[in-house]
């Protein structure tokens, strides 16, 4: 136990001296004017991609369903504004590989005509199933970045009789303040969403964890929640990765989620504050999820701040709206700790995108890695209690099974280890590589076992057939012999008889 752990109760994680959240967090929320083109990806969530319901040339309205959910874990997609469907096809995905994925491209008409939304006066008169259905129809997914569809999650919570909702207002990633912004400006929406979700899940109370570096958000949320005794606003220490569900659960309840299990198994369900606000809009106002608050930040951005932007807006349009004052050295979707580097700016934003960062060369100082000096900084920083330096050494030695046995699967890829490493070792990359390699080997093993089974089955079949052939031949032979014997007997009998 370190001195910090004694003082704050939190021994893991990192906290940068400058988290770069301000001044962007303090700038009032801006609404982005509708861009000329939007690309709405069909896979913006965990699960099966949505299936397009429109054709090229169709006119769509704001809030119109343009692609339907497929399967149990999936989410539909809606048009963020009115316009014409220009294309249904591949666009560059927000992924470092720059590989394409399917999207519906809309040329907007600037009229912003909307479909009519089904409002509900009293959401608490609806049954939990009806609420889940409205959440599903609105295409809501976890907006903290995990993008798990919210409706099946709520159903899961009911199945496990979850008693407490954990509402994640941690927003521990440096630079980002979209959750902060929604709590400051739309606290009533968030609290209403929490109450609706409690009703849908059947939870009796909710705890909202907010990092103590957001005093304005804490004050606004306390004010919004003052009439609801079952909702508790809990300031938590500002320590990355506080926004990870496992860490937030540990700090707020003192419980640990068993390795490999979901939080629901211990009676808790974690949802993000922005997701709760989206649930409020969907259930009360019938408004699907087609826009969200995105933090545009980084040293290269001229006017950093939070922007209410349509989902599917191209990163280049978003950056043009906030302005660039210098050439960015790296574009990141998400936060600097876990976000993905973008190959260029012609990629659409997705539902889970809480921030776009245009970072300068000074902000991302790339230093070539040097050998590990076993300083143990990574061991102290790891929120999961892993020994990153040992994992990395095993992986570099090709000992994937040993790394797996040491708990590689428990790694969150939060990046604390790589952040503190004085040798600048690419630890997260090493672990991602190893996870992929272990997965590939498991698949290969499964495949070869399947092939073996098939080969064995074939062998057995051939043997059986051969055996059957031999048996059939033997049977036929015996039959023939019997027939011959019988025939011989027939021939002989009279003569015998005659002889007798």
């Amino acid at each position, binding site marked *: 136990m370190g001195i910090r752990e004694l003082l704050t109760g939190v021994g893991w994680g990192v906290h940068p001296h400058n988290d770069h959240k301000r001044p962007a967090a303090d700038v009032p929320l801006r609404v982005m004017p509708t861009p000329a083109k939007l690309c709405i990806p069909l896979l913006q969530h965990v699960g099966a991609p949505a299936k397009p319901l429109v054709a090229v040339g169709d006119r769509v309205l704001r809030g119109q369903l343009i692609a339907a959910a497929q399967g149990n874990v999936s989410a539909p997609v809606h048009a963020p504004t009115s316009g014409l469907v220009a294309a249904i096809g591949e666009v560059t995905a927000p992924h470092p590989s720059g590989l394409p994925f399917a999207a519906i491209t809309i040329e907007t008409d600037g009229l912003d005509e909307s479909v009519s939304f089904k409002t509900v006066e009293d959401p608490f008169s609806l049954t939990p199933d009806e609420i889940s259905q409205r959440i599903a129809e609105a295409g809501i997914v976890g907006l903290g970045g995990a993008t798990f569809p919210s409706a099946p999650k709520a159903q899961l919570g009911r199945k496990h009789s979850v008693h407490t909702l954990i509402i994640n207002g941690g927003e521990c990633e440096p630079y980002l303040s979209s959750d902060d912004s929604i709590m400051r400006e739309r606290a009533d929406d968030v609290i209403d969403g929490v109450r609706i979700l409690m009703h849908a899940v059947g939870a009796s109370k909710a705890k909202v964890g907010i990092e103590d570096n957001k005093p304005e958000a804490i004050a606004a949320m306390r004010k919004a929640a003052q009439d609801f005794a079952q909702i508790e606003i809990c300031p938590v220490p500002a320590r990355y990765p506080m926004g990870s569900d496992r860490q937030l659960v540990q700090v707020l309840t003192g419980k640990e989620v068993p390795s490999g299990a979901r939080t629901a198994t211990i009676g808790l369900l974690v949802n993000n504050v922005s997701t709760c606000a989206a649930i409020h809009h969907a259930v009360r106002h019938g408004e699907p999820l087609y826009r969200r608050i995105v933090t545009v930040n980084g040293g290269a951005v001229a006017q950093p701040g939070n922007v209410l932007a349509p989902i599917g807006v191209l990163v280049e349009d978003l950056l043009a709206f906030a302005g660039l004052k210098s050439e960015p050295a790296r574009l*990141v979707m998400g936060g600097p700790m876990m976000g993905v580097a973008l190959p260029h700016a012609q990629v659409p934003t997705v539902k889970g995108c809480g921030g776009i960062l245009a970072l300068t060369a000074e902000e991302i100082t790339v230093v070539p890695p040097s050998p590990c000096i076993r300083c143990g900084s990574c061991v102290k920083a790891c929120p999961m209690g892993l020994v990153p330096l040992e994992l990395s050494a095993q992986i570099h030695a090709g000992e994937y099974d040993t790394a797996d046995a040491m708990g590689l699967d428990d790694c969150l890829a939060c990046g604390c280890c790589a952040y503190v490493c004085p040798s600048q070792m690419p630890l997260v990359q090493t672990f991602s590589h190893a996870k992929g390699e272990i997965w590939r080997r498991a698949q290969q093993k499964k495949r070869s076992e399947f092939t073996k089974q098939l080969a064995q089955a074939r062998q057995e079949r051939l043997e059986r057939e051969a055996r059957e052939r031999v048996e059939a031949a033997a049977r036929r032979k015996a039959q023939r012999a019997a027939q011959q014997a019988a025939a011989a007997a027939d021939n002989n009998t009279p003569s015998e008889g005659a002889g007798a």
Partner: protein
Amino acid sequence: MNTQAISLQTMASPHARAANSVSVVMLKVMAALVPATAYAFYLFGSPAFWLWAITIAASMAGEAACLRLAGKPVKAVLYDGSAILTGWLLAVSLPPWAPWWIGVVGGLFATTLGKQAFGGIGNNLFNPAMIARIMLLVSFPVQMTHWVVPAGAPSLFDGLRITLGQMPVPDAMTSASLLGWAKTDMARGIDLLHTHLPGHVFDWNGARVGSLGETSVWLIALGGIALLYMRVISWHIPVTMLIGLAVPAALGHAADPARFMDMSTHLLSGGAMLGAFFIATDYVTSPSSRAGQIIFGLGCGLLTWVIRTYGGYPEGVAFAVLLMNALTPAIDRLIKPRVYGRTMGGKPISLKGETK
């Protein structure tokens, strides 16, 4: 600017890094050594400075030669500062007026066989400075136990002549150290209650005989506290090492003061303080988990006491640290932090009692 023109190289997260590097760590440790070293130059005069400079130069030369042989980048690795620190730590553990070749042999040995032979920084099993000190002590016992009384610093030039062996050290200036004195008297059958120690062996402010940078314990402790404050080291190893030494010393002294030295003598003499803050805390050769570090520290302290009390050599810090270095891989293998959501044994924690 035109956002369409942006085309970038992508990299894995995280995209932010703490402003920390190996050379920054080494520089901080060196800065923490400055007060004790500077005071040693004042106490023991210019021979101490020359020996310090020669040892560091030899240590760097050894590192550079090995890097060149291995075809590795020489300049970049030398700049990380680890070879300088190794030389520095070795120098402060040498007798201040030791001849120049002690520094050269020790410095070369530390970085070549002590470090680069294992594969360079991060790969050595033993603390390079301590393994060099022990090699020198075993090979050249006369020169390595030739202590001088801090009195009258010779001029810079005379100092160089002493270090180079051109000017003999007058016998009146040499003396045994406290630990050495006590061990010799005990061996002669004089118990600790009857031994007569000259004043210059236990001036805790530092003006006493001893290794170059080990005599001013308070300045070393100050440097150690600075390292703790800068978060270069954590309290686990230094505190437990001092406890591991203090507890048996106190118990022994309480049981038989004629046979066992008291606790403060143990803590304040020899290399105990330097060892606790600067030697045992070496990242590469100590365990990486907190629990492992506590065991390592206690072991270093206890072994120091055992060697000082029962061993053939008066001082035991270097031996104790090397013995615990040898145990470090085993400690790291056996003692790991508990993984979140798992038991100490590595199984997922049970759900019983967890649901409402």
